[in-house]
């Protein structure tokens, strides 16, 4: 139930963010509405207003339908089935919003062609505003959050807590470095040139870089502290979920804040820009959202509004990056299928040739009789918090912190007691079987063999 609530909250958040961002694209910024560049004098044109209105209505309808279909996450008793529905829902929701965007982008483009509203279709550079405009933040400041993120990495090795846990902290440290790398990209970000007004171009460039830098640095700091939080909360699932939720919420809120603050300032600055000349790059943007320019040597390109960056689909590197992104999204439902495989595959427990073997998808525990120090059977699984592994209602597998037993390797369906507890010198195992009879049988065999 907890997992489904998390899915629901996640779905609502994704839906809200998508809706807000797409609705925001209906406001003119840098002469661009719905991914189409039009003269600023035509922003209030009645035909443009009609298209914007229809676009907003379509967004609202899509939002309501998507919201109502969230109820389908709860149709099954099985976590993996509901998770698959959730992943399919994400793919379909993103597709629906994309189709709405494409439809109204095309409509506005047709109107632009009909009215002959084209601007200057050449690449425009302002000699006084270049990428060398920087921000008042040195990349060395990122060493501070990196150092914070490294603390649990050091501690996990000092305390001998295991490779799986160490991997978590290494990933967190790597994430901080990723934000540092993104900040370093600032130097390569091109200037925002919208027209002949140098001060407008300079201000737009500074706004983009400023908010991009904020986003990178604050995200790096939050990630560093969250890594330390994980160290303290790793054996308390509830605290971990709450902390993780708060961390994710803070990152999202701050990312949204910087994005919309940047958009708001871009809008104010560019409201009256381009009186004599304005850059029209529409021909290089497929549906106003995918950048494709064979003349441009760069793989990365600034998004048209906001602070983000995108790839140049005309370059092999850009094509690969885009293909990978699409593939990851389309494979989400496949993840659900893999989770179903986990949940519906029974656990196998056997004792053959003096070796106790527990097998489940992708995991096998082999415990030699001579290594067994103690064995017992439990009718009920004690309170257990997941450290690393799978924690569904019908499957608990991986490293858990178990009340009364400490850290244990578990492979059970908590709904199928009893469970065999096996203690060896280094590790305690709690193992289940496909049925209670099977677990009892194996326990009896091992107990007999130990005697």
């Amino acid at each position, binding site marked *: 139930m907890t997992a489904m609530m998390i899915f629901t909250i996640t779905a609502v958040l994704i839906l809200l963010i998508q809706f807000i961002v797409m609705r925001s694209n209906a406001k003119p910024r840098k002469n661009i509405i719905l991914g189409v560049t039009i003269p600023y004098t035509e922003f209030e044109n009645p035909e443009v207003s009609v298209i914007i209105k229809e676009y907003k209505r379509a967004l609202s309808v899509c939002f309501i339908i998507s919201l109502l279909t969230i109820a389908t996450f709860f149709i099954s008793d099985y976590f993996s089935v509901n998770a698959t529905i959730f992943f399919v829902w994400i793919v379909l929701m993103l597709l629906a919003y994309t189709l709405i965007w494409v439809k109204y982008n095309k409509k506005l483009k047709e109107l632009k062609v009909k009215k002959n509203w084209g601007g*200057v279709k*050449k*690449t*425009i*550079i*302002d*000699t*006084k505003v*270049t*990428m*060398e405009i920087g921000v008042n933040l040195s990349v060395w400041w990122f060493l501070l959050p990196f150092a914070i993120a490294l603390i649990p990495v050091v501690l996990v090795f000092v305390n001998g807590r295991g490779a799986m846990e160490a991997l978590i902290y290494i990933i967190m440290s790597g994430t901080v470095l990723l934000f540092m790398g993104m900040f370093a990209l600032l130097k*390569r970000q*091109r*200037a925002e*040139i919208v027209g*002949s007004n140098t001060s407008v171009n300079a201000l737009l460039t500074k706004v983009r870089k400023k908010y991009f830098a904020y986003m990178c640095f604050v995200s790096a700091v939050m990630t560093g502290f969250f890594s330390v939080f994980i160290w303290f909360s790793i054996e308390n699932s509830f605290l971990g979920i709450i902390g993780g939720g708060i961390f994710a919420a803070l990152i999202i809120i701050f990312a949204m804040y910087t994005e919309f603050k940047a958009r708001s300032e871009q809008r104010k600055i560019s409201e009256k820009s381009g009186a004599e*000349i304005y850059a029209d790059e529409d021909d290089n943007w497929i549906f106003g959202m995918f950048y494709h*320019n064979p*003349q*441009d*040597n*760069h793989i990365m390109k600034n998004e048209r509004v906001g602070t983000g960056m995108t790839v140049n689909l005309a370059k092999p590197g850009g094509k690969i990056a885009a293909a990978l992104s699409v593939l990851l999204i389309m494979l989400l439902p496949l993840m659900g299928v893999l989770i179903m495989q986990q949940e519906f595959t029974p656990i196998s427990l056997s004792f053959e040739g003096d070796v106790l073997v527990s097998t489940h998808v992708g995991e096998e525990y082999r415990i030699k009789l001579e290594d067994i120090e103690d064995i017992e059977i439990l009718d009920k699984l004690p309170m257990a918090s997941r450290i690393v592994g799978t924690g569904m209602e019908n499957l608990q597998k991986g490293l858990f912190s178990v009340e009364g037993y400490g850290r244990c390797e578990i492979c059970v369906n908590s709904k199928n007691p009893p469970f065999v507890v096996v203690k060896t010198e280094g590790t305690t195992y709690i193992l289940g079987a496909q049925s209670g009879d099977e677990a009892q049988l194996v326990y009896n065999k091992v107990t007999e063999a130990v005697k």
Partner: protein
Amino acid sequence: MILQFDFSSDVPIYAQIRNQVVEGIANGDLEPGEKLPTIRSLASEAGINMMTVSKAYQLLKSEGYIETDRRQGAVVKLPTGVKKLTESSINQLSIIASEAKIAGMSESDFIEMCKQVYEKGSDGK
């Protein structure tokens, strides 16, 4: 000053850079002592090869329109001691005049057109 690059034009990009800088100096959009972007940043901003920008700057330097310095980069200067057009420019003017003649333009109309173009360039001073 705004530089515009037309990638579909027959005019090479380095020539487009050179021509627009010269026009900019004539119009007053670029003043003596004013810095031009570095080769790297101009190339990156326009998404073109650094060699292309370097070629344009070399040409401008040889013609006396800019001077380059390792620390300052490229700086605009007005050519000194140049009293007449280069042979290349005169040849280009000759071609344009020939085209005007073939098109049926009279001498006075051609001179008037040249005057307008010249004054457009002088307005910025």
